[in-house]
């Protein structure tokens, strides 16, 4: 198992008390697998991803649980050891390629910087490597592009650069946090295609954070659905889409507008809205919006259970 997250919880100290944002999250990621964590805004999916890189810098954050990377708990690692992992064995690409690159350095310099941190390559070799990486990203005139500044490139190009940078030290784990959300749909298709191709070439596992069920369906091997800081359901992508066992997953899938197939007159919407972190109910966070709600749902949160297919719902078997 490349990555084994066990009972991860993240909360923030605030003037109003402790704010639990991620609660008791556990999942595994095998070698060269793509796991998608899918959820709506505020579900805690991005924080989960950042905590794996230990990139939550807020001094008020409290992180508990275990994050085992190649068997080692990275939450207990010393900072220098963590730095060697970051950008080396694990790398991350972010949502907004427009702001994720330092504006005052050239593309090439920024990739070279990363290579030089993690390898002993001299600058000229690092530069060659950066150019060949850019070429591998489908950038035609890599040599030219590496001399450009970020603002001179389009969003899609910048995301390719980000990916090239992330893959520059052949990471075992690539975390992609909403990598295409800021891009147009035709460019999104290019980037997703590229990620799938690179996974094979670099033999990296990918943790894909997204809100788009379409992207999940087209790319992920397995999927974990998050709602209000907890995993509602996880399993193989095909299973989840064919037979959602959590009422939230079922509702979410039904609410997606369909491009193909017949036009329907009304969407099936889930009533209400997800709770804010400070107003989560004591029991299941989805209960107030749930059609399958029973008395016990308001009392305690259901735990994620099951061997391969995991669901956190008291009535998991009954959801059609």
């Amino acid at each position, binding site marked *: 198992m490349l990555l084994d997250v066990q009972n991860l919880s993240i909360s923030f100290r605030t003037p109003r008390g402790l704010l639990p944002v991620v609660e008791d999250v556990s999942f595994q990621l095998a070698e060269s697998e793509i796991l998608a964590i899918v959820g709506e805004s505020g579900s805690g999916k991005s924080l989960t991803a950042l905590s794996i890189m230990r990139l939550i810098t807020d001094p008020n954050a409290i992180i508990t649980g275990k994050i085992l990377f190649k068997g080692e708990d990275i939450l207990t690692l010393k900072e220098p050891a963590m730095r060697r992992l970051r950008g080396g064995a694990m790398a991350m690409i972010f949502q907004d390629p427009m702001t994720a690159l330092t504006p005052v350095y050239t593309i090439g310099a920024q990739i070279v910087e990363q290579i030089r941190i993690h390898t002993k390559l001299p600058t000229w070799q690092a530069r060659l490597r950066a150019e060949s990486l850019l070429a591998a990203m489908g950038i035609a005139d890599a040599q030219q592009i590496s001399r450009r500044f970020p603002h001179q490139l389009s969003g899609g190009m910048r995301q390719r650069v980000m990916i090239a940078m992330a893959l520059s030290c052949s990471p075992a784990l690539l975390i992609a946090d909403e990598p295409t959300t800021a891009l147009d749909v035709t460019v999104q298709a290019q980037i997703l295609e590229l990620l799938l191709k690179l996974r094979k070439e670099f033999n990296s596992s990918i943790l894909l954070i997204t809100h*788009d069920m379409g992207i999940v369906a087209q790319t992920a091997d397995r999927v974990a659905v998050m709602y209000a800081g907890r995993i509602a359901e996880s399993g193989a992508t095909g299973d989840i*889409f064919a037979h959602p066992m959590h009422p939230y997953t079922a509702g979410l899938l039904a609410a997606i507008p369909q491009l193909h197939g017949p036009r329907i007159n009304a969407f099936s919407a*889930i009533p209400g809205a997800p709770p804010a972190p400070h107003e989560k109910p004591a029991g299941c966070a989805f209960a107030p919006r749930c059609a399958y709600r029973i008395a016990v749902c308001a009392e305690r949160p259901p735990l994620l259970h099951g061997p391969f297919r995991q669901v956190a719902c008291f009535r998991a078997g009954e959801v059609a």
Partner: protein
Amino acid sequence: MTAPILIAENLSKTFHAGRRFGPGGRQNIQALSNVSLKVYPGETLGLVGESGCGKSTLGRTLLKLYTPDAGKIIFQGQDITRMSERALRPLRANMQMVFQDPSASLNPRRRVGDLIAEPLRVHNYGAREKIQARLEELMHLVGLAPEHLSRFPHEFSGGQRQRIGLARAIALNPSLIIADEPVSALDVSIQAQIVNLMADLQEQLDLTYIFIAHDLAVIRQAAERVAVMYLGVIVEIGDTDTVMLTPAHHYTAALISAVPEPNPAARRARTILQGEPPSPANPPPGCRFHTRCPAAQGRCKTERPELRPYGENREVACHFPL
């Protein structure tokens, strides 16, 4: 066929950015180029395209929030293109707008009741009690409670704020609402609520919508007709089913093919468009799509295709339609 409620003829709009002798020089961004369309009462016309295609500019120009450089806008039989803001004011009650980001389009310093009452007061709807009654009626229509009137916009969730925006837009019983990406800032489960609410309101109040979105699936479900835009021009316009199921323009086809389908069983090799849209400051000559088009030929580089009828209920701007 009934008369169109809104007609746009050959609208063009160019924005200027930068200074002539400033660093980077002066740029002319051609946001709209010869755009024509008709909107019929009671229908929902979808406007779809990628960022920078001019769909929002078109929406705002139709409402005269921007003045077009050329062309004509005829709303309910009146030419409003050169009308002064003062003369336009009574007509404004009949055409409204819903914005993408409700937290930006609602003044954060004013209470919800005050915000929704603004159009009523400006158009002399009536006495205080009459306005109050109307406010409560509106809140009910959009699925909010009357006690929400005394709160500030930031106390609401995104979906609720969009309901407030809708309440304000329908306050004066308009006939046309232009909704600029009304659901793209919302999560999927909330998106559906708002699309449903808009459909309900359309039925109850005889509204006509122009629904602007970048999400083809939303348009597919929300609009009967759709216009696909690329770099400031309409490349294809027609019945949603026709356009989406059997696209005639190569760009429409590529766009549809690029949308990831939420069905893992249907993973397929897609036709992926290469490159990215050229800058609107420097659009290519001829057909604007020819730089990325898989079927482009010599003629496409020089001769701009006009929108021409193609089959039933559809027009396409392509020399070699699918």
